[in-house]
């Protein structure tokens, strides 16, 4: 098959994955901003913030 065609098809498949990721981002954003469902995550509980370096 033509190398150019194979490459653009391969790239397009990767773009499908990107669109899926963007859709998930839109879903997450909407949950917290459009519908007003703001999370109240207690960071001390889930990660121990204040007890040491966060995220490390």
């Amino acid at each position, binding site marked *: 098959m*033509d190398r150019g065609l194979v490459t*653009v098809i391969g790239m397009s498949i990767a*773009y499908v994955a990107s*669109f899926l990721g963007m859709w998930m*981002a839109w879903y997450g954003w909407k949950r917290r901003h459009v519908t007003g469902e*703001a999370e109240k995550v207690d960071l001390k509980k889930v*990660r121990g913030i204040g007890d040491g370096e966060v*995220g490390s």
Partner: protein
Amino acid sequence: MVGGAAFFYRLARRSESDFFLAGRSLPWWLPAASVFSTHTATDTPMWITGTVYAHGLRGLWYTFFAGWTSVAAFVSARIYRRALAMTQAEWQVVRFHGLGAELLRGWIAGWQVFMNMFILGWVGMAMGKVGALAFGWPVWYGLVIPSVITAFYTLAAGYWGVVMGDFLQGIVAIFAILLVSWVGIVAAGGPAGVVDGITGMGEAWRLDSMAFTGWLSGDFPVVWWATMLVIAIVGGFGMGTSIDWYVEAQRIQSAKSVRDAAYGIWWGGAITLARNGIWAAAILAFFVMAPGITDPAEYELGWFRLGFELLPAGLIGVFFAAILAIHFSTISSHLNLGALYFTRDLYQRYLRPDASERSLVWMGRAATAVLLLGSFAYGLMMENITQWLIFALWLMMAGIWLPNILQVVWWRFNSWGYLASWIANLGVAWLVVWILPAFGVIPVLPDYLQFWSLMALGALVFFPATFLTKAEPMDHLVHFYLQTRPIGWWGPVKAEARRRGLLDDEPTAAHSGPRPLIRRTWTPEEADAWSREDWIAIVLSPVIMGLGMIGAANACLGRMSGLWQLALATGLGLVMFWVIDPKLKAVSVEYELQQAKYLERLERQMRWSRQGESDNGENV
């Protein structure tokens, strides 16, 4: 590796940061070894063999895209390390703001999860081909069995296992590369025999790394060489070569300081390019022994043939063990990296922001397993795809090459412009690469014209998109500027930071009196600003890497020019480190005092914490 997996299991399970970044605690030589090992995959000798067999030493310039590390080490790695983003997708919400930033984060996470699976598939297939060449195994043996073994320690020990494995595997790989290359050169009559053999065939141009076919014509014109240098070197100012950059992003963040991140990337890139030079000499030896092969699928296996056909029986086992080590290091990196993008940027950010550390580590393991299974399916689908196709794919991302740089160096570039560039690139690539040539509207463009056309057409979309939408909020930009101190055009943001009293007009000086030509004593405030010392490193660094790569090839061919090139590269390297090291030390010490505060803010944003949102600028 099994013992290592058990040992590092305890460290990896402590937190998401341990599982994916080894707790941001690594000295520079471990990320450096990991950069080298990850970029030494089973398909890499095929790719280098293919270019050098077809083009001679000038083919090495195709492999110089790793030269982006020469500039990135002192520019974008430094900026990115300060941003603290675990991934290139997370970087989007540090650099940009609001919905556009979130869409970009999801976009890039989706892209990278797929790309990791894709890379795992094609590297796995390369291993399948090597197994078939060496032992006559069915291809799927090589695709599946080594990857499953790798998955065991990657699942257990996470990035700790990856990076420690990479270090050991890197040593084994260097040993095998030197051994097989030496055996190949000796079999072709020694260095002089290789040079004489090629000259005797009337193919002396193959020994010249600058053997151009003209300014614009032929298969290696000056303009193509210059284009490749621009892509690599200028790309280092930002995240220009995004297909490589995202792998190194993890190595940069796993380093324990800004200085360690810079040196990790620099040495990883430098060793990779020197390795290419050594390989090139061996492949010219293979050319002397087996000239005239026209099928790329056949000559791409040349370096493996040197090993399997010339080594004595006892050493063939060692050689195969080294190939496995090369393979393990690449597979483990991409398994862990793909899982990182899924876990951190999709699962945690958008589905379960309140997930505990323990459940995130388990999700990381589950994502690793799913990626592995996906890669098997993908690998079996693309049995005949060579790395030339990957190179073509890399080239076709030209439409986002400039935006990848602009996001680092230009304050006004915004999330909508960047997102527009990604989407436009797909349409433009279809148009330029296939639709217009297929219908005879334009000829099939040479690579350099394809690159510049895609870049220019993409710019026609992303510049208007940027100017027709608002700049990112100044609060967000000021915070980003103070945290990362980016290079480039940040004047209005810098002025606003000064107006708010967050940045001194005249930083405290370490010396009284006139500025020395090369400053070696820095206050933290002085070190944060870009200065001539940075520019000396930025200019010298690609020259050193280029000389190292070409010099290694020439030296292995016994040519005096190679020794001079290596000596010059060493001398310039000493000067470069003498100039830049005091500054990097000063930047690192100051930044580490701020890091805990920045990490906490990032984590609150990550969890959609309300406090994190209110922190988004008003109180910078």
